[in-house]
């Protein structure tokens, strides 16, 4: 173990962060745990974009303190790795705050360390409801799957849709989405006529889509993680002519993730989705945010809800640190985070004082062409939506 | 009358429509040295495979000491004293000679399931292996890896592995294949030393060796037994001359 490990140590000295300054100049150290490699590497870049933009707008400081970012790569769902990295960030890098956290399992694992080390963790994406319940040192600025699925059900019911078929990817978030949708939809008087969970690595949707077509529901609600699955599903749905057969397609915003929408193509046109952020959200703040983030991210990355959450996470931390007067004590920061309310590029958001979870507006959008590019155009909204998973 | 050491009754083996072994009735008396000869493709190796349990017969039975072993696997027949060598070496390339022979000895002593003490610490095993290696005059190669040895030596190891299980019945499938005549003579001399009480069934091409070594000879043609007799009479049998010796000269 000796030699190789020494190389590791040497690298830390060379590339690590030196802790020089003290007193008021002592930096806020933020450990960002996210996917920087592998299929989900964009998530890490999105976070970086949001964080960098906020810091750029604030001279690289939070509440007057300089900021140091330590990035750690935990690609995909890798809780054991995430946990180890969190431990290292505490023991070695001595960070004051955890941030990032794209995948729920990783957030659960890091939440446990946060609790043990009394270091706040700001969840910038992971959307499983129980993350904030499990650890008192977690605050979330992103969303929960239930939070965006539930309004879709209510909206559908409002349109007079009675019979819905649900299709979700067969993993935790998929099941959460299915449950939340069903609960809200049935409560609003609708019926779920069929539901199916599809394997995560699923090359061919034809059988599922055929089945839906044969069932003839009024609408089909689907939830897939953003990436290859939504376009594959939409293509098959278009090929089989679901819309022509009078079956409406509704989904959560993952299906039309801003950063993948161009690649998804015209099959997404007309799709109704529910989510908390669209890059074409009508507000001055968003216009400025999106333009600046786009400039920062470069050509091949469209800033999405990941970047917004990262940006808001930094804003929340900034506000909290102002409240503590720059005190970096974990418990004090957590106290300060509770009940924060401020204007985000996505609209007004707040961190619930009780649950430390996000409360925000969820929008109903339709995929349309705006200036020649596909975009999620908001046309209806549900204000101050809480996570329905919380009591 | 005591049962023959090895016996087959109506033994048949077909691969698809090709009949490799056709109703073979073979009786090999205890202590005899029995050779099976026949032209290429006569089904000699198939016969050995059937006897040793590598193949299951299509029909017919195999008996050891009068007991039906047709349904027993290879290793179970070895436990009953029937061991074979292979026409093409089947050795343990990365083991030393001593290791592989010791392994075979350990298996015969029933130690193969012991998983705690090192093989090398079983004195009885190592002594027996060393003796066998010495007896076969390959002691100088004891600590060489099998893959590094010359072919002739490897051929002896092939036999050493079989002898390590102290067979009562030994099936030798062309033991001298591919080694020079002089060496094969020595090999057979050694074999004779080592297996005085062993029943031997020998498959061999070299007629000189067969006639010197065996006391009975069976001739296999087209999967069926043609003749069985003493070497001298087989050699002079007109049918044999025609189908076998006649062909052999062309080989």
């Amino acid at each position: 173990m000796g030699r190789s490990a020494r190389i590791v140590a040497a690298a830390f000295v060379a590339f690590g962060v030196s802790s020089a300054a003290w007193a008021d100049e002592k930096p806020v150290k933020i450990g960002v745990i996210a996917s920087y490699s592998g299929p989900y590497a964009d998530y890490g870049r999105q976070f970086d974009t949001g964080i960098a933009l906020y810091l750029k707008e604030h001279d690289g400081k939070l509440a007057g303190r300089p900021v140091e970012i330590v990035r750690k790569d935990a690609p995909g769902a890798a809780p054991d790795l995430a946990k180890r990295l969190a431990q290292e960030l505490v023991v070695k890098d001595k960070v004051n705050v955890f941030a990032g956290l794209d995948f729920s399992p990783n957030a659960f694992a890091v939440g446990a360390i946060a609790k043990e080390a009394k270091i706040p963790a700001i969840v910038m994406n992971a959307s499983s409801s129980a993350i904030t319940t499990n650890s008192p040192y977690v605050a979330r600025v992103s969303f929960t799957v239930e939070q965006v699925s539930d309004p879709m059900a209510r909206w559908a019911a409002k349109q007079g849709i009675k019979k819905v078929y649900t299709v979700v990817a067969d993993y935790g978030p998929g099941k959460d989405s299915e449950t939340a949708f069903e609960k809200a939809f049935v409560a609003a008087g609708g019926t779920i006529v069929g539901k199916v969970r599809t394997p995560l690595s699923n090359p061919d949707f034809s059988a599922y889509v055929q089945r839906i077509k044969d069932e003839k529901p009024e609408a089909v609600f689907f939830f897939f993680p953003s990436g290859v699955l939504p376009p594959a599903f939409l293509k098959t749905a278009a090929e089989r002519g679901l819309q022509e057969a009078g079956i409406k397609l509704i989904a959560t915003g993952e299906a039309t993730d801003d950063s993948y929408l161009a690649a998804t193509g015209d099959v997404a046109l007309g799709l109704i989705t529910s989510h908390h952020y669209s890059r074409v959200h009508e507000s001055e703040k968003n216009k400025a945010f999106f333009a600046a983030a786009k400039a920062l991210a470069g050509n091949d990355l469209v800033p999405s809800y990941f970047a917004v959450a990262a940006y808001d996470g930094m804003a929340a931390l900034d506000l909290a640190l102002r409240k503590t007067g720059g005190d970096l004590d974990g418990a004090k920061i957590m106290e300060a985070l509770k009940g924060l309310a401020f204007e985000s590029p996505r609209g007004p958001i707040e961190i619930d004082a009780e649950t430390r979870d996000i409360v925000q507006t969820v929008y109903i959008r339709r995929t349309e062409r705006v200036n020649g590019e596909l975009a999620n155009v908001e046309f209806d909204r549900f204000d101050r939506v809480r996570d329905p998973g919380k009591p | 009358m005591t049962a023959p050491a090895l016996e087959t009754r109506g033994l048949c083996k077909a691969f698809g429509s090709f009949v490799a072994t056709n109703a073979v009735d073979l009786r090999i008396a205890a202590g005899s040295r029995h050779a099976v000869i026949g032209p290429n493709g006569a089904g000699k190796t198939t016969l050995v495979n059937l006897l040793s349990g590598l193949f299951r017969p299509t029909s017919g039975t195999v008996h050891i000491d009068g007991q039906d072993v047709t349904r027993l696997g290879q290793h179970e027949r070895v436990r009953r004293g029937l061991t074979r060598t292979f026409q093409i070496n089947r050795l343990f390339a990365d083991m030393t000679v001593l290791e592989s022979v010791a392994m075979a000895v350990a298996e015969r002593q029933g130690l193969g399931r012991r998983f705690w003490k090192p093989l090398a610490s079983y004195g009885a095993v190592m002594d027996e292996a060393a003796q066998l290696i010495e007896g076969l005059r390959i002691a100088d190669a004891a600590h060489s890896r099998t893959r590094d040895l010359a072919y002739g030596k490897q051929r002896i190891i092939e036999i050493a592995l079989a002898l390590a299980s102290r067979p009562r019945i030994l099936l030798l499938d062309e033991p001298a294949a591919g080694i020079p005549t002089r060496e094969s003579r020595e090999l057979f001399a050694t074999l004779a030393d080592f297996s005085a009480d062993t029943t031997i069934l020998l498959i061999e091409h070299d007629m000189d060796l067969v006639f010197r070594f065996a006391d009975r000879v069976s001739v296999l043609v087209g999967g069926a037994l043609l003749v069985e007799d003493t070497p001298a009479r087989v050699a002079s049998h007109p049918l044999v001359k025609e189908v076998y010796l006649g062909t052999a000269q062309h080989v």
Partner: protein
Amino acid sequence: MTGVVSPMAAPAALRGAGAWKPAELLFWTLPVIGWFAFPENLPLLTQIAITALFALSLDLVLGVAGMVTLGHAAFFGVGAYAAGMLPAYLGIGDPLLGLVAAAAAAALAGALTSPLMLRGSGLSQLMVSVGINAMLYEAANKATEVTGGVDGLPGVENTPLFGMWSFDLYGRTAYVYAVVVLLLLFWMARRVVRSPFGVSLRGIRLNAARMPALGVPVNRRLAVVWTLAAAYAGVAGALLTQTTQFVSINVLGFDRSAEVLLILILGGAGHLYGALVGAVAYMSIHHLLADIDPEFWQFWIGLIFIVVVLFARDGALGAAARIRDLIRNLILGRGASR
């Protein structure tokens, strides 16, 4: 080495084979050095030790006995879940009991799957192992209510080790615990490999067709080592659960099966130490590269694999052996000694 092997000399020459060589003893000082040299990296070192144990388990079946598998995470996962469910459902938090339960559960899984694994060989065997792994993963995914699915099983909390040492944030207890378990199981594996049983496994790998002719029930032996290796993998999984106090479905992931295979090949299969060296090398390189270049470390590690294969066959141990031979030959001036 010429001359007659006397019946007594031969055993003497081999009898020493069981003793620990100086190089081995030196190797095992590394964990101690690691403790003092990298007190802040103990969680990483712990996971290296766990991965090493997992790779060791794979080496027992693949390197020693020659069974090809790309589904070894199945048993890692069974062990990890056993160790997680014990405290989560039964409230039994003792870590050592957890290890025993994990070993037992994984061994059972091994025993049950061994008939499937013994039907074919080579690629066919490989794909059966992939299938077993995938089916277990799917089963765990379907049973999210029981396993906690991707988000992890709630309530995995262990009591302090021997009632004295709790698993701390610095990972000190975890490190010592993992290393001691690794050493203990390595010692056992080392004995097993040198025993008659172990030698017969090597025989099966080198020439499976010959072994029945020596009286060896090949499938039974393979079933035993498969079960043993499953138990080892289960203990590795349990260690991961206990040292991270977390278990989720990713313990059963195909990635994990593939990664441990790569680690073993990288280190060199069949020598036991290859598994350890591979784990140390791969995890260190991975850690290092991921820190330097979090986005493209995969490129570099891929390149390393390619270079290793092209220029250093048989993994790190193979390369080390060649270098050792080269040096020995240079020093002794023996040229090609064999």
